[in-house]
């Protein structure tokens, strides 16, 4: 895969839409009408792929968002005499605002409760529209005037088809670029594994909010485009049942790619036209179809097509760009904090869980470039202390400073900026993303707006994107996973996934990695490999490590110093050989009868 060619595959969905419109132009006006409406539904399908597929949020509010777009646009034209294009922009703003409100209220929840918040928004919006008779015409509805663009009246089906085709293609292109770029990847990471995402600077709430806003903008836009076609807006056209039927678009089409939204939206919207002879059975057919797809084709139609095509076509492995030499650890960085050689300084940290004193006056220090271990039997408080250091648990007392900065008030996702990354006890790779994408997230440049901009850079294969890919490939090379760069992370073995986690943790050139039971579940040979890998990384890149582990031989041959925890306290500290033979440590592990 050539490095410099723009991401042309992203043009695909937009081109399909233009193609549909082009085909329609050669047909009569009734088919043109149907195709135009189907194209609008393709946009809705795309928007729902973002929200339902990537962000994994169930939304029952699509109907109300569409209503908001339609009503805002129509009222702006009818009452305020705003030109139609301007009202499209207003509809976008209104839709985005609606999506933001839903996200603000709902993203503290997941699953059913989030769906409930969207249901509340949906119902209350429609009720408000229906009750505001003076403004919206209430249940009787309002008439939608024919749009005018630069003085040209859009009144024929042909003109509508052209306008809708262009508008939807543009919006779809934008959404596709976002989905294929870092924004989409980070969104999948955020919804796939929240904790790992936060640890690498991906704000889960921020991304979910962005998903709601982006999809609502697209759906409201669709509503504004549709309004002149249906001529009369009434609130009952945008009810809960409509929202539910729109959910079927990504389900039947495929939830994980924009194509799915296109196929599902377009196909299902055309269905009633095809089912005219059996109009009675329309909804039954629809519902049965959805159940059928959900049971037998879980990925939707796109998954089916992909499997059929992939079984016929063998993928050729990509030509990998030549791997640059492992960069030397930068020497101009200030490796030490004001406290001398201490990079991480933990002082008298305390944590209670009700009556349990999980961490009791624990202190330790990790010098720059050091590999320090933290061992202790189960229930000793290691994990609690570790979670405090990585920001997922609040301490009751004590101080934790990193190169002079206090860590305790920092959110987990701000640690990466300081140069702290971590791995996880239950391996936390982003399974549906490629290894390369996993590592790119490790670069930490994951603020929502930045990621959106980076998506456009990704589309154009700009310098920033190429730089990120090079750095990620280098990291993968140093852990020995370069050949797997484009494989799905979820398909790797456990050992390889742990390596991937490591690659993700080092790509940023952090100063400290927190490793949580890095060899748990690995076979003897894999443990050895990982130990050597860690030593090499430490030597070549000068990264300090704090390792929590149960595997004593591993730890004693990896770490240059150890802290031992028991019952919440640090009971011993020093070189591995010295510490392990201490009676107090032996007693911790083997009990009173231990003979040294």
């Amino acid at each position, binding site marked *: 895969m050539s490095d410099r060619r723009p991401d042309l595959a992203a043009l695909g969905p937009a081109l399909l839409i233009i193609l549909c419109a082009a085909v329609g132009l050669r047909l009569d006006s009734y088919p043109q009408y149907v195709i135009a409406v189907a194209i609008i539904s393709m946009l809705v399908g795309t928007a729902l792929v973002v929200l*339902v597929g990537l962000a*994994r949020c*169930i939304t029952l509010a699509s109907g109300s968002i569409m209503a908001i777009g339609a009503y805002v646009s129509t009222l702006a034209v009818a009452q305020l005499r705003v030109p139609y294009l301007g009202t499209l922009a207003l509809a976008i703003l209104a839709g985005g605002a609606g999506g933001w409100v839903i996200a603000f*209220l709902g993203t503290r*929840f997941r*699953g*059913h*409760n989030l*769906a*409930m*918040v969207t*249901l*509340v928004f949906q*119902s*209350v919006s429609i*009720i408000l529209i229906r*009750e505001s008779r003076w403004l919206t015409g209430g249940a009787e509805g309002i008439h939608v005037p024919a749009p005018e663009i630069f003085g040209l009246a859009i009144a024929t089906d042909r003109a509508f088809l052209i306008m809708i085709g262009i508008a939807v293609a543009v919006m779809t292109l934008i959404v596709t670029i976002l989905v294929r770029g870092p924004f989409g990847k980070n969104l999948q990471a955020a919804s796939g594994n929240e904790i790992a995402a936060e640890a690498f600077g991906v704000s889960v709430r921020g991304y979910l909010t962005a998903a709601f806003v982006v999809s609502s903008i697209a759906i409201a836009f669709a509503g504004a485009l549709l309004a002149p076609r249906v001529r009369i807006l009434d609130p009952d056209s945008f009810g*809960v049942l409509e929202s*539910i039927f729109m*959910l*079927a678009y990504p*389900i039947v089409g495929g939830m994980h790619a924009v194509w799915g939204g296109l196929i599902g939206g377009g196909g299902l919207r055309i269905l009633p036209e095809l089912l005219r002879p059996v109009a*009675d*059975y329309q*909804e*039954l057919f*629809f*519902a*049965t179809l*959805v*159940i059928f797809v*959900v*049971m037998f084709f*879980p990925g939707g139609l796109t998954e089916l097509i992909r499997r059929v095509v992939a079984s016929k076509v063998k993928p050729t492995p990509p030509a990998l760009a030549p791997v640059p030499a492992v960069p030397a650890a930068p020497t101009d960085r200030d490796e030490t904090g004001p406290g001398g050689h201490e990079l991480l300084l933990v002082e008298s940290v305390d944590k209670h*869980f009700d009556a349990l004193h*999980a961490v009791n006056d624990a202190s330790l220090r990790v010098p720059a470039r050091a590999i320090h271990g933290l061992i202790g039997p189960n229930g000793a408080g290691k*994990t*609690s202390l570790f979670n405090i250091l990585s920001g997922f648990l609040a301490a009751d007392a004590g101080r934790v400073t990193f190169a002079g900065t206090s860590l305790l008030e920092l959110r987990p996702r701000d640690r990466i900026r300081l140069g702290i990354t971590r791995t996880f006890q239950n391996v936390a790779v982003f399974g549906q993303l490629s290894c390369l994408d996993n590592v790119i997230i490790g670069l930490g440049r994951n603020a929502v707006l930045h990621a959106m901009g980076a998506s456009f850079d990704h589309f154009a294969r700009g310098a920033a994107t190429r730089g990120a890919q090079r750095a990620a490939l280098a990291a993968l090379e140093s852990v020995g996973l370069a050949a797997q760069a484009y494989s799905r992370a979820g398909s790797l073995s456990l050992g390889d996934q742990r390596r991937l986690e490591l690659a993700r943790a080092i790509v940023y050139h952090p100063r400290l990695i927190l490793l949580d039971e890095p060899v748990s579940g690995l076979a003897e040979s894999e443990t050895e490999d990982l130990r050597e890998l860690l030593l090499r990384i430490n030597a070549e890149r000068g990264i300090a490590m704090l390792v929590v582990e149960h595997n004593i031989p591993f730890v004693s041959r990896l770490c240059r110093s150890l802290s031992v925890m028991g019952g919440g306290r640090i009971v011993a500290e020093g070189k591995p050989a010295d510490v392990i033979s201490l009676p107090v440590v032996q007693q911790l592990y083997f009990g009173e009868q231990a003979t040294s």
Partner: protein
Amino acid sequence: MLTELGFVVLAGIKFGALYALAALGLVVVHKATKTVNFAHGAFAMLGAFASFLIVVNWHWPYWAAYLLIPWAIGLIAAAMESAILRPLRRADMFTVVIATVFLGIAISEGFRLTYNTELLAVPSLFAGPPFIVAGVLITRDTLWVIAGALAAALACIALFSYGRFGRGMRAMAANIRGAQLCGYSIDRVYMLAWFLGGGLAGLTGVLIAPVTGVSIDLSIAIITAGFVAGVIGGFDSPKGAIVGGLLLGIAESVSAAYVSSAMKNCVSFLLLFLVLMWRPQGMFPERSGRSV
């Protein structure tokens, strides 16, 4: 003034008891399988329709309806579970939600196709003069609905807490592998949970049929009310379902009377919203273990 309030609160309790029963059906299924059955309303509608068939079409006595219908609907529900839900056991929550939602729609549509009519009226169970308490007229039917729904709910709770299968369901909900090791079969427990949930739905249908008639929008009305009541009470608590249902019914009735009658539906959603904001785990949350 007080008489008025009495009427309003009584109506709230009547519907609240029905909502409670509906919510209980949802809670039973959720407690055992960790999924919400969105087809629950459709099952209740089937129960109501069945009572129309039995009482109006076939002229059987009413008690036959009460006896037969919960079993029949329970069996249908269990059959749906093994046909549709079992293959989806490993799927993510979204897929299961979608499957049950569209199952409900399919059932409703199927009913409409076989009996295309706007409403089927079902006669009241009791004829006879109403009781008068402090100026408030209480019809026999109202009393029956309230008493019947609450009694059924309490019986169900007892079964769940003390019966062997109730224990099995709770064990399975808490720890699937552990429960399997103890000899409980997933398939049987899930089917039983759906059977019980379906039976409750059927009973709800029979009770509600004289009050609202049998129509296709019964299925949406019941699932919405049941779900909202479940969220209010907490989805893992049977007694939460009862409290949630009663609270919802009374809140709807009172606000419709004293705030705005047109916004009745709005109220249940606002109540839901308030509960989500302040106490998202419901009024009676399952005490969860601390995660370390």
